[in-house]
């Protein structure tokens, strides 16, 4: 199974993450941990939980970047989890077959019972989407909440990944990116969705939507504007005249 499916599945389930909306609240991160630590696999454990160098296994993380030009600085909150790549290098390097890409829907999973914890798949993943569980010593990664999205024990509207369901701003969308007519594909087309590190040739399924154009100037714009504006004094008589005419209209 460590080979990628010979025929990539037509169905490509994945996430679309809107960088224009994400406020960096970490809700998706913690809810993901909460859902998955009680899931079928081993718990997502934490070490030094109450001490120094606290750390643990998570399937989703939020980075915060500053994007700068000479006159602008834009803070971008950047969620990152497994992109369920079509050409997933993490799968092909796995010596045991524990890592595999599902034939049905393209979800990349780890069979924890077979995983030897060699870590090679994490080396192969360009995105840092795999983390070794510090206690169980098996590889952990986003499952796309495969135990939610098909789960008939959940109400239909809840059959979406935990991170998507919980995201307060709605910055995360879930769907079939293999279907050009799906909502998510539409979104990607409309908003110029892009791949992370295309040069790594992993063909990620997950897409990112860019921040829309902003006026996030940093202080240096002050001097420019000063010269470009000239002061206009208010015209008192004109103002009272306007008030009078307006009142007349009301009456």
């Amino acid at each position: 199974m460590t080979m990628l499916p010979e025929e990539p599945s037509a169905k490509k389930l994945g996430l679309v993450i809107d960088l224009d909306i994400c406020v960096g609240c970490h809700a998706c991160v913690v809810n993901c941990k909460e859902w998955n630590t009680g899931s079928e696999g081993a718990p997502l454990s934490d070490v030094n939980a109450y001490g120094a160098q606290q750390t643990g296994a998570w399937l989703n993380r939020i980075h915060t970047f500053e994007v700068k030009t000479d006159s602008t600085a834009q803070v971008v909150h950047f969620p990152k989890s497994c992109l369920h790549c079509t050409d997933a290098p993490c799968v092909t390097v796995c010596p045991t077959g524990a890592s595999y890409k599902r034939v049905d829907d393209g979800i990349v999973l780890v069979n924890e019972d077979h995983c030897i914890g060699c870590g090679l798949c994490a080396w192969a993943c360009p995105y840092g989407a795999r983390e070794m569980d510090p206690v169980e010593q098996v590889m952990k990664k986003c499952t796309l909440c495969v135990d939610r999205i098909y789960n008939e024990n959940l109400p239909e509207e809840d059959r979406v990944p935990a991170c998507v369901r919980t995201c307060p701003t709605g910055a995360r969308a879930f769907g079939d990116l293999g279907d050009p007519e799906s909502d998510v594909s539409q979104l990607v087309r409309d908003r110029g969705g892009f791949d992370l590190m295309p040069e790594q040739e992993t063909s990620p399924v997950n897409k990112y939507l860019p921040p829309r154009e902003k006026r996030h100037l940093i202080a240096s714009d002050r001097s420019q504007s000063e010269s470009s504006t000239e002061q206009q004094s208010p015209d008192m008589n004109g103002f009272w005249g306007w008030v009078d005419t307006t009142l007349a209209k009301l009456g």
Partner: protein
Amino acid sequence: MKAQPAINTQPKVSDEVRQTTCYMCACRCGINVHLKDGDIRYIEGNRNHPVNQGVLCAKGSAGIMQHNSPARLRAPLKRVGPRGSGQFEEISWDEALETATQWLGEIRQKDPRKLAFFTGRDQSQALTGWWAQQYGTPNFAAHGGFCSVNMAAAGIYTLGGAFWEFGSPDWELTQLFMMFGVAEDHDSNPIKMGIGRLKDRGVRVISVNPVQTGYSAVADDWVSITPGTDGLLIQSLIYELLRTNQIDLDYLIRYTNAAWLVIDAPGTEKHGLFSRNADGDPQVLCRTTGQLISHRGRGIIPNLTDATVDPDGVRLVSVFSLMIEAWLSEEFAPEATESRTGVPASRVRQLAAELAQVAFEQEIEIPIEWTDWKGEKHQSMKGRPVSMHAMRGISAHSNGFQTCRALHILQLLLGSVDVPGGFRFKPPYPKSVEMHPKPAGHANTIQPGQPLSGAPLGYPRSPDDLLIDDEGRPVRIDKAFSWDAPLSAHGLMHMVISNAHAGDPYPIDVLFMYMANMAWNSSMNSAGVIEMLTDIDAETGDYKIPKLIYSDAYASEMVAYADLVLPDTTYLERHDCISLLDRPICEPDAVADAIRWPVVELKRNVRGFQSVLLDLGARLGLPGMVDESGAPMYRDYADYIMNHQRKPGVGPLAGFRGTGGESGRGEPNAKQLDAYIENGGFWMHELPDAARYYKAQNADYQQFAVEMGFYDAPAPYVYQIYSEELQKFRLAAEGFGSTQPPEHLRERVHQSFTPLPEWYAPFEGEMVSESEFPIYALTQRPMAMYHSWGSQNPWLRQIHGHNPLFVSSEIARQHAITDGDWVWVRSHHGRIKVQAVVMHALNPNTVWTWNAIGKRKGAWQLDPDAPEATKGFLLNHLIHELLPERGDGLRWANSDPITGQAAWYDLKVSIEKADPNDPGVYPEFPTIEAPGNLIKPASTVTYGVQFQTKKGERS
């Protein structure tokens, strides 16, 4: 290809789902708690809940870890070592309650003021305030005074309702959203959901904030303002709107006091008051007849322009003309303000133009017929789809009250308050200041063994309502409602400990606190506060604050300073009620309240604080808590929630009352809590369509409000651009009236109580040398952490284990600071050593850090070498509760002069690179011992492993 592993895509999630209310912060979202074998399997948002509609934030999602925290207190504790040592002995509830009853009983019979009862992050103020009232002490408040009272009070005095969680933008209809100084808010999830929805609709979001993170980062337009100058920026915007004739005159006339006439008789006791007719109604000048008439008349078109005289020959001018005089003045031209605000004139113009463009060219109308308070019928509801929101960025400054008033006036000029697309009130707001009680507890009304005549907190309307004695001395320990802070509607929690320590205005005997970490992050000058708590009176040999009772659920820094600890449950183990009588959770279109109930079994010897309080009340024989025979009236809080009535038919919960499930008013219902549980933990009742907007002036809404029990008769009103209440205080400062400010405060009261808001520079910046302390220092709320109490959470503390100081690239350049450098930060009060990170998207004169991440060693069951203590820090060590000494030897509180709001964000500092060979935070405090009976924290957490047996069972 071999077959792929068969995986269980259909696991059973839980045995049972219980719906209650989150309490990882004050937003109070609805949650579904999934239980499996008695353990919490998963917590998710409740989709039907009005607040969060299914979403859940990071903190809420970490509830499992909070609930299972090793820092949870386990039993009542009696201090056995010195204060602050953390040495305690476990005692029984009987002993604890007896001790408290004895301490409190004695002073109640002698002088109930000797009890100061302050309740921090209380969500049951309807109970705790009432308890204080029944006990008979005026010394009660919750955390509002150091939190956002500027916002709350400015809202009430101006609009009859505040931003905060008392109103919200019309997320569905607004076309432009402007935010001032918001990082996270109490309305955490709703704001995020709202911003998300605006983005979906392509609506522009503008954020005015010195720091660009979170909401400001996704804003389409980020305005990097110099801290403390929003009032100026807003007045510049007003100037621009006036200059370009872009204001909503019709709205101003109908819904505000713009047309009201003000007496212009400088030097007299009437100057600046409204001209009133014989019935006491404010008057306007009729444009057609030239007569003075009551503003209550229908269809009046007033004359706004011309001054007039009353029958006594006194000159009268309209509020509107005063506004024009005040704001159409060159001093507010964008060019004149840009150097102070840091917002270029061109951008101010752009912003003003944008506001006007959306307000006036994108007017919306929804076809709902409604009747206004004068009986006039309107075919539709007209909306100006500009909405605004503000939080502590403007409120936590010493000019915050007036800044917030200015902001409300800007909204009114645009005609966008409680209209479609604008800022909307959430019932039971709006409610004019007249409808709010005045503070009770006048010096001569306090009687030993007797309850107070009313609630300790309220809204004074003139100097006569102040709580001062005949010599003008404060009645309250926090000096609320005194000339120090006349409109301190939420009290001044941040002054309690220092005043009690100084015995000023008088010493107290028992300090009773609930849910406030005053020995650490909620105090200014934390090190000083720690000293005050442990300071010994040389005469008595006892502590200066002799007895300290504290209720916390966890081993916080504050616990170590208590003499008696009343351990609370976690939020999943107790009954609570989120009441309309307190800070409600309503939506603009619906009235709502909610409960918490024990969804997991309690396995420690702890009790819900509210039940304990009722028990104490009964032991003390407080009226309303015992029946005629002296027996307790309420079994516990749950019993109280269902059976207590404030007035006939109105109780803590408004839903499922009576036998027929009445809403709002109705007899107590013994099955009420069951009905709430059945309904998902909350109750919601939608407003009729005609009542949805213009609530303050809307006859349909007023009727609805009466039915719901918000008040007993319709109480419509118009918004107060010009505040006569403030003018009354000003007149007192000018020497009129029987109650006047003491000499040392006269000038300050006169300057700050302007009936139209005026901007003044924040006090600290004015009092310290600009060259010595040129830099502004702020904190922000991290979205994934709640004050001090999130650090005990192993998940959240991985996200925020310590906090750097973010310094602007400009400051970094000046001081050659690079990421990771240790820097000394100095204020007039102290110095700290911290690690810096350089940030570009930041006001050039500003540094900031995350709030309350730094921890005291030993607290919260964290290892003493946890990064929270070794790298994390508090800015609070630089902030003093008093301003630097003035020439006259007096020190003013570091607060807003009107409301007493703590001016956290006035802080000015200097920065200097530290010796790289001497890294580490300064100051360091000795480790405090945790109470000995706590469970030992595990080093490894594998939550969910208990479900593993189940995991094997593939279905």
